[in-house]
């Protein structure tokens, strides 16, 4: 875009210089004509861009989308987490400003915290392929145009394929995690803003830790038995601190079991 603008500016300057050199006058209409001509070039260029987009091979477009889709789920969840944390933060602010009684505050806060835990659980669970990996798969012809959609739904299959090209994927996955972990932390910092909000912060660190733990034990996790909640009897991940069904805190005995 930048290069295009610079090019246009140079062209305009050259044209105007030519007009002056030939003894023409530069008045408002000249400028109007220059702008209109520029707009015409712009219009032709975007028509060209449309044609290019339409004549692109379908595979490229699909790969493009898959790469984006992999990020979107994560980002939505992260946004949701940030929103809930911000809500908790705002609630505490309201409480400190004297708008809520102690009881109300505790009750409302508990509700939000439950939602936050829910989101963080989901965020931990979400395991997606790195877009670059996908591209690599596409390059090797492992990703067919037709079954791209089915593939994204059927994770297990993709993972099996990923194992086939393990040497590449492992390195890349690790690289991604090391990239995303600090990013999470900065986001969390921003979300809670108030340094005083110790609890939210610790929640967040938990989740960051959880991320790391998941990566190391992701293989093991799939096979080991899940922890059961004492309150509702629902099944949870082995390292879960809160039940994902009822939100109750999972006791030390479950965690150790």
């Amino acid at each position, binding site marked *: 875009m930048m290069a295009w603008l610079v090019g246009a500016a140079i062209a305009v300057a050259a044209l105007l210089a030519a007009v002056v050199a030939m003894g023409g006058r530069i008045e408002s*209409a000249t400028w109007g004509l220059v702008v209109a001509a520029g*707009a015409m070039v712009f219009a032709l260029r*975007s028509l060209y861009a449309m044609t290019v*987009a*339409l004549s*692109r091979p379908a595979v490229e477009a699909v790969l493009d*989308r898959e790469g984006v889709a992999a990020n979107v789920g994560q980002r939505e969840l992260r946004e949701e987490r940030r929103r809930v944390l911000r809500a908790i933060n705002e609630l505490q602010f309201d409480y*400190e400003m004297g708008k*809520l009684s102690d009881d*109300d505050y505790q009750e409302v806060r508990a509700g939000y915290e439950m939602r936050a835990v829910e989101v963080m659980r989901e965020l931990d669970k979400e395991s997606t392929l790195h877009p670059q990996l996908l591209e690599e798969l596409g390059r090797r012809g492992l990703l067919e145009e037709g079954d791209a959609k089915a593939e994204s739904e059927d994770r297990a299959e993709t993972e099996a394929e990923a194992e086939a090209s393990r040497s590449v994927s492992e390195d890349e996955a690790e690289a991604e995690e090391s990239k995303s972990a600090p990013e999470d932390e900065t986001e969390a910092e921003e979300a809670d803003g108030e340094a005083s909000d110790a609890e939210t912060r610790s929640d967040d660190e938990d989740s960051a830790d959880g991320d790391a733990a998941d990566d190391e034990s992701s293989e093991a996790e799939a096979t080991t038995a899940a922890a059961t909640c004492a309150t509702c009897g629902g099944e949870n991940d082995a390292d879960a601190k809160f039940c994902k069904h009822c939100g109750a805190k999972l006791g030390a005995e479950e965690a150790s079991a």
Partner: protein
Amino acid sequence: MTISALGTAALLVLFLMTVATSVLALLGAVRHSERLVEGAVQGIHGVFAVALFASMLLEYAFLAGDYTIQYVQQNGHPEMPIFYKITAFWGSLDGSLLFWVLLLSLFSSLAIRANRQRHRVLIPHAVLVLGLIIGFFSALLLFLKNPFSPYILTPGATMQGKGMNPLLQNPYMIFHPPSLYLGMVSMAVPFAFGMAALITGQVDSAWQRSVRRWVLFSWLFLGIGLILGGLWAYEELGWGGYWAWDPVENAGLLPWLTCSAFLHSVMVQERRGMLKVWNLVLVIASFFLTIYGTFLTRSGVVQSVHAFGESPELAWSFGGLMIAIVVVSAVLLIWRLPLLRSRNELESIMSREFAFLLNNWLFLIAALFVGIATIFPTLTELEWFREFYNAALYPIVKLISSDSKPLVSRITIGPSFYNYYMSPLGLALIFLTGFGPLVAWRKTSGKSLVSQFMWPLIVGLLVMVLAAVVTPVVRSGADVPGVCNDCVGGMQFMSVKGLLCFGLCGFTGWTIVQEFYRGVRVRRKNRQQGVIEALMGLMMKARRRYGGYVVHLGIVLMFLGFAGNSYKVERKLVMHPGEVVELDQYKIRHDGIIATQDWQKDMLTVKLTVLDQQDQKLAELEPAKWWYYQLKDQPTTEASRYMALEGDVYASIADVTLSTGWTRVNLYYNPLVNWVWVGFAVMLIGGFICIGTRKGDAEGAS
């Protein structure tokens, strides 16, 4: 190839592009073909580029004075300043439609670019909706109102341009229509994303994140447009007021009201997952109202100072579009109703969501009231409507107000009717402006209620008492009969609504102060900070919240101005040179008349001097009458005013007898009127604080 032919060709290409884009988007969405969707996305950018080209061609035609084009011939003039030559582009109907298309395609292109990666699924549908809307307007341009249509020379006709309507050659008028357009046109983006959310069934709050800024943008520019229109009316029309409920001004107010409602209710959905259907309805209604507003302005169905003139084809086209919008969105909404169930329920009346709900109802009632009252006089022209009204509605109306009469002919609805019903609504809204921030989400307990409401209530009462004491004293200085719409018994200058308005301004104003004060206190308790630093930190941390409070502060200041309107003094009299008359606490002296002229008009200026009670000169006023050569029989009124914090002395002239110097003048004293403009400026600042991008939100910026 003439510019006229080239421009028409560009419009044809534009129309074909919109059709192609819509078809590509539809096919892409149906077949899940990424290639076609990408083509459609590029297509919408291309539509903008072509619209830009067509617009620039028209600009060139104005600058170069190509009077073979009818539109340029009618609106251009070789001697117009360049600035007006450029703005003549949107000065009249055809060009303003092209300007509309240009803005619409620009916004569509920007919105699609910003959200392309985030809401991949919504994009093809949003492109489809936007493509269809642009297609509609470009079809109007191509088939009905082509701004490039050639000017056929008839014998005796001049080749020279006529020049832009002189009333529009005013700095406010240059920016008033475009900012209204900006506000109205940008509503199409939230509508498109709302529709896309309905079609795809992704009706969670994701789509709203893409559109909240757009709605805010639209709200801001509608506000700027309205206030500039008010300033223009105040300075140009010479009747001493700024808002007369003119149909066209109402057309801008309607979507502004629904936008305000949406900006509040969207918070409820974000926070509590409630009001999903409601929010969609508000977005649809806002967009519908922008089209309704355009319909009112362009079709000539309403009588107004600045309707564009009669055009039945346009009326039918817009009517069709409005019906299509209502039907399509209603069908989609009903289809998706099961997905739109609320996650939570209202827990307590003393909660912020309830305050928001109330405020939404009030905004919507206000919009409905104004919308119906605007079209009502037009409806009463229709025979069948009068019969229907007399048969079905009249008995009900008669129950409410006993002095109503059955319809026999066209009726007019004047400003006093609107003011009578709108002022209680306004007062209720300003009360909620104070009430909302004081209560917490979900519920507020009794104890915190007391601590929250005590001071604002006390301050509100104090202000009311103070106003009750002060206003009669201020008035009694002059023994001039003033205009007082709702006076109580013996106290001639006590206005119930005025006092209530002052009280509520005090209440709400103090609420805002208290919010800032307590916020700063909490922040300073948690960290070592100075007051200013804490205040800045507060603003940066919760932009939306404190930006919103700044907007509220602006509203309070504006309401001060509205309250002052209850104490307006108006004198219409004939003055001769040398005469001194009293106006409230001022004296006005007539100092003579001056006649001048310039390249486009004759001017008669009356010199008036404003004196205080000690005969000290305060200011000189120069109200004038201008006769443009172009419109000899329509002199324009140039009002003049002496601005002060406590009010304006405002003068305009109705008639001048040149031989004797006797002048019929209208003198007004408008207390607190300038607070309306000040308040609006504050509101604008608040709006920009809200719209400003947070670092974390940058990726979601749209």
